[in-house]
């Protein structure tokens, strides 16, 4: 096992083309142990596609993503979960007919390949574990309800809880703060920090700049599938290329590729 600061997830020359569209083009990235990496960029920049490749949902056209040296891209999605990469979806996808607790239990039972519930024995220990995760995430009092009864913030939390239940080493959060009000997003950011404190490295896609700049150790910017900047949040925010990508060119002329 590697210590803090060492490379955990590494992407080398990752490309993903949809026909002629280069959704992700030659992107190198890395995520260290215990780090929060912010992934930002205008709409259509390829952020979610990069997530899908890293999570193994879709194969890379070229390049590779490795977790601690093991290739993860191009495998079935459930296998990367077993390796320790869990993701949430931008549009939440709870199992609508399962209770909140059952949603988390699915992650608990199926996210780990060899590990058994602590205490070993069957249902009860797993339930208590799932309840602990729900308490941590702040949904314990909703355990027996259906996801439809939760607010958007609640469903986003559930999405995170379900991913956490799989026992990930890397958590990919796709716009978990977007759409929440100021109080809710503040709470969720605090939660993300706590998750990191628990030893999970995080990549988060986010449009809410305040949230992502606040919580990230490092920020990476994608535009038209290419990485255009990377660095400390403050540096990136003042990077001319980033400002151009978001606000357009000064002359309002044709964009330089």
């Amino acid at each position: 096992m590697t210590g803090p600061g060492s490379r955990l997830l590494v992407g080398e020359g990752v490309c993903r083309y949809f026909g002629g569209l280069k959704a992700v083009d030659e992107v190198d990235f890395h995520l260290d142990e215990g780090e929060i990496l912010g992934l930002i960029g205008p709409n259509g920049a390829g952020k979610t596609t990069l997530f899908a490749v890293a999570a193994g949902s879709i194969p890379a056209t070229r390049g590779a993503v490795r977790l601690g040296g093991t290739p993860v891209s191009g495998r079935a999605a459930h296998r990367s979960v077993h390796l320790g990469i869990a993701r949430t979806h931008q549009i939440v996808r709870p199992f609508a007919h399962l209770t909140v607790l059952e949603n988390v239990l699915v992650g608990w039972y199926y996210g780990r390949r060899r590990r058994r519930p602590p205490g070993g024995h069957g249902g009860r220990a797993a339930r208590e574990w799932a309840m602990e995760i729900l308490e941590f995430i702040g949904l314990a009092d909703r355990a027996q309800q259906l996801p439809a009864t939760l607010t958007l913030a609640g469903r986003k939390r559930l999405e995170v809880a379900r991913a956490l239940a799989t026992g990930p080493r890397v958590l990919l959060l796709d716009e978990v703060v977007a759409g929440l009000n100021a109080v809710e997003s503040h709470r969720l950011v605090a939660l993300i920090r706590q998750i990191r404190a628990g030893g999970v490295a995080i990549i988060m896609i986010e449009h809410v700049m305040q949230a992502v700049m606040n919580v990230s150790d490092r920020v990476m910017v994608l535009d038209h599938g290419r990485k255009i900047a990377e660095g400390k949040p403050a540096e990136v925010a003042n990077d001319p290329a980033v400002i151009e990508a978001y606000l357009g060119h000064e002359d309002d002329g044709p964009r330089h590729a």
Partner: protein
Amino acid sequence: MRARLVRSGPRIGWRLPAWAPARTLVLFVGALAVLYALPLVVPMGDYAHDLIGLTFMYMAAALAWNWLGGYVGQISFGHAAMFGVGGFVAARIALSTGLPFWAGWLAGGLTAGLYGLLWGHPTLRLRGPYFSIATIGVGEATRLVATYWDPFTGGSSGLSLPLGQGPTKFALYWYGLYLLAAVVALSWWLRRSRIGLGLLAIKEDVEAAADVGVNATLYQDLVLVLSATVIGVCGGFYAWYQAFIDPQDLFSFDRSIGFVLMGVVGGIGTILGPALGAIVFVVVQELLLASYAQFYLGIYGLLLVLIILFEPLGLSGLLLRLARRLGWRPAAGRAPAIAAGPASSASTTEPGPGGAT
């Protein structure tokens, strides 16, 4: 951890798996005993006796169809293919070898299970109507091959089973009961164990299930193989029941539709539902088929329309409503039963996910 377990209830020396609570088990064994003794205690005519035996088989088949149709949500219109494969393999074994009849059932079931895997593995990645259409193709193709494969199936003239080598119709009552009991237990396990939770997740959203680590391909294949095996054994049962089988009957599209109807009429996805549906199916068929042969499919069609319009959960949905009206309240959340996992030996204690500890 131990303290927690003690708090949540008295512990006994040996544990039942969490998916089979004691009360359910008692009910199950009780029902089994009553049905076992019924023909010995209550005098009933041969007709009723045989018909109940046949109904047991249809209940088992409907439940097995429901594993795929109800638990994972993949509606198959081709289960007659496995029914026929099981029936003809059983008949062939009885005719060409001296093996006992149950070996034929077993072989028929296993062949049907493998056949299910053969077409199911590639088609199960389709979902919803696309999968259903593929199963219609599988069913019809199998029927045509069986009809023209004279040396094996006897072609359109069918096969007669060697009576005297197998169970009598009278004895089939109990074999049907054993089959049903095994299938009910399997249904319960598939529904209530942690596997059931994974299957529900697949039914809800395959991709989201994969994103929390459920191997959808593996579990769907597994359920189909189980379902196909049981349907195959049912085919073997049917072969001995009829003593004469022909491909146009065993592989018929009507039969595939029959399995769907039993599931839908009774209530898809439940345990009780398909069993009830099978009873209704047999009764309606017996009452109407003799006198109004053209009529009975129309009745089913009408039933189907009414159910889909008014009570998607079928008969079990109606029962649930009735029970609620009579004041019965389900326990708060189905979680305890569904979530409980099967017994597994205590092993390593691992730290949990990130901040959750």
